[in-house]
């Protein structure tokens, strides 16, 4: 059942009979019997004391809400509005409000016009053959009423949810001796790879720059080293370096060795801690690898 505006009736003093006590109008209520609602009672709520009308109007959220009220209080189905009767009631509210010179939202008047238009379309005689194909003139209004009503209900549902500061309260217990904690920066793998890509690119340029001057490149040096290791047996690690090439040359050699190691082309062995390193071309079963295996 639809939620209705909160209205309370406070009987203040006995007063004259309602001016708008409308006579029974069964003729306009074709489904009244179906709904088991005594038709004669329908218009009774139309009388509202003038001083209360403004408040009454405020209780509605607009013309759709007022229409829903008119429909629901008679236990009628939205899908089957007795349009003539509902329109008549709606118009009376509007007229009354205008008589009382209440400021009326424009939407109420637009709805009045809409209702009048639908009513007139329903009164127009239609050829029997067209009845099936033509949409009920009320359809659009019915759709709007339903759509509004479902959100009216949704609003009530949301209001009924247990919410903070009304039904539940969040809790808190202070920490009196708070310390300063620095958040650790977050890094994505992609960020790191992009950084690496750049350092690689830069070092290639670096190498390239020196290649022109010193004719050195890592790839070349890798080949040189592999060539030097072609004969079986070990070569002392230090013998692979040529100090006369300078710091850059030594570095290129070193990078070449690392690259070869990474690619599994050479083994570097060391008899014991701090003993001289020896290098040889990769063997099927390498002896001591200097590289401590990552426990992964």
């Amino acid at each position, binding site marked *: 059942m639809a939620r209705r505006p909160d209205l309370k009736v406070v009987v203040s003093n006995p007063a004259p009979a309602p001016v708008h006590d409308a006579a029974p109008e069964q003729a306009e209520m074709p489904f009244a019997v179906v*709904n088991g609602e005594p038709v004669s009672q329908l218009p009774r709520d139309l009388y509202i*004391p003038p001083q209360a009308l403004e408040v009454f109007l405020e209780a509605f959220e607009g013309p759709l809400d007022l229409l829903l009220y008119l429909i629901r209080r008679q236990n009628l189905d939205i899908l089957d509005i007795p349009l003539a009767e509902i329109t008549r009631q709606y118009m009376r509210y509007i007229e009354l409000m205008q008589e009382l010179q209440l400021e009326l939202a424009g939407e109420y008047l637009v709805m009045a016009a809409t209702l009048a238009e639908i009513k007139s379309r329903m009164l127009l005689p239609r050829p029997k053959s067209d009845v099936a194909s033509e949409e009920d003139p009320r359809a659009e209004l019915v759709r709007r009423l339903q759509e509004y009503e479902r*959100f009216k209900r949704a609003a009530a549902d949301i209001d009924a949810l247990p919410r903070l500061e009304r039904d539940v309260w969040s809790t808190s217990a202070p920490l009196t001796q708070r310390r300063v904690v620095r958040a650790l920066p977050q890094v994505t793998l992609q960020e790191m790879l992009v950084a690496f890509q750049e350092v690689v690119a830069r070092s290639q340029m670096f190498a390239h720059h020196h290649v022109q001057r010193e004719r050195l490149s890592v790839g070349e040096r890798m080949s040189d080293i592999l060539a030097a290791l072609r004969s079986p047996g070990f070569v002392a690690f230090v013998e692979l370096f040529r100090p006369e090439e300078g710091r850059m040359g030594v570095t290129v050699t070193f990078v070449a060795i690392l690259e070869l190691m990474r690619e599994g082309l050479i083994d570097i062995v060391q008899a014991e801690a701090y003993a001289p390193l020896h290098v040889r071309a990769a063997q099927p079963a390498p002896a001591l690898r200097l590289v401590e295996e990552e426990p992964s």
Partner: protein
Amino acid sequence: MNETYLRNVVEAALLAAGAPVPLADLARLFGEGAQQPGVDELRAALAALAGGYEGRGIELKETASGWRVQVRPELAPEISRLWPERTTRYSRALLETLALIAYRQPITRAEIEAVRGVAVNPNIIRTVIERNWVRVVGHRDVPGHPELLATTRDFLDYFGLKSLDQLPPLAELRAMSDVNLQLALAGEGGATAAALADEDATTAGEAAPAAAEADAEDAGEEDELSAEGGASAELVAAPRHPEY
């Protein structure tokens, strides 16, 4: 990791935070990397806490932003006495607007007005944005580029929801032809009233949580309005709209 220690830290953190704490933040309380408890351990700690709150005045609740400890609704009458001045009622206009934003997001103000059939007071939009329940998430690509409104995590947290899926279901729309058909059939026999009564009952049932409340109100109102008789009646709006 020691279970009691884990549970103690989690409980203290939830209480210290004073707001929902996501699982990831709970994990980070224990440091980095290998020191962190696993998700299973954390969930077990939360379950243990929830168990410990059975029969107490507080409970553990998961909402959109994470886990929080909250006072049980059963104690609302007592606890609300801590803040007698606080009133948190919202007008029907605000709630309807909020409902439309929640169910139809992203939505423009004009679209809200189209459904409600009445202009939306700008104060309402301002209020829900100031409460951080609603935010502007973009602009509709139509003339005027109206703002698109959507609900926030805070909205979900405030109403104790984990996600929008947990909103009460919207009532179904029914097609006119359905009932016209029913009427046509029912009109032939005496079963008409029953059929329609059923129909009505179905409709009413759709608005689940609020149904009872609404019905109670309806009943009351029915009595009041029809009891009017010949006496003059003064209508007084109940204090429903404290803010607007």
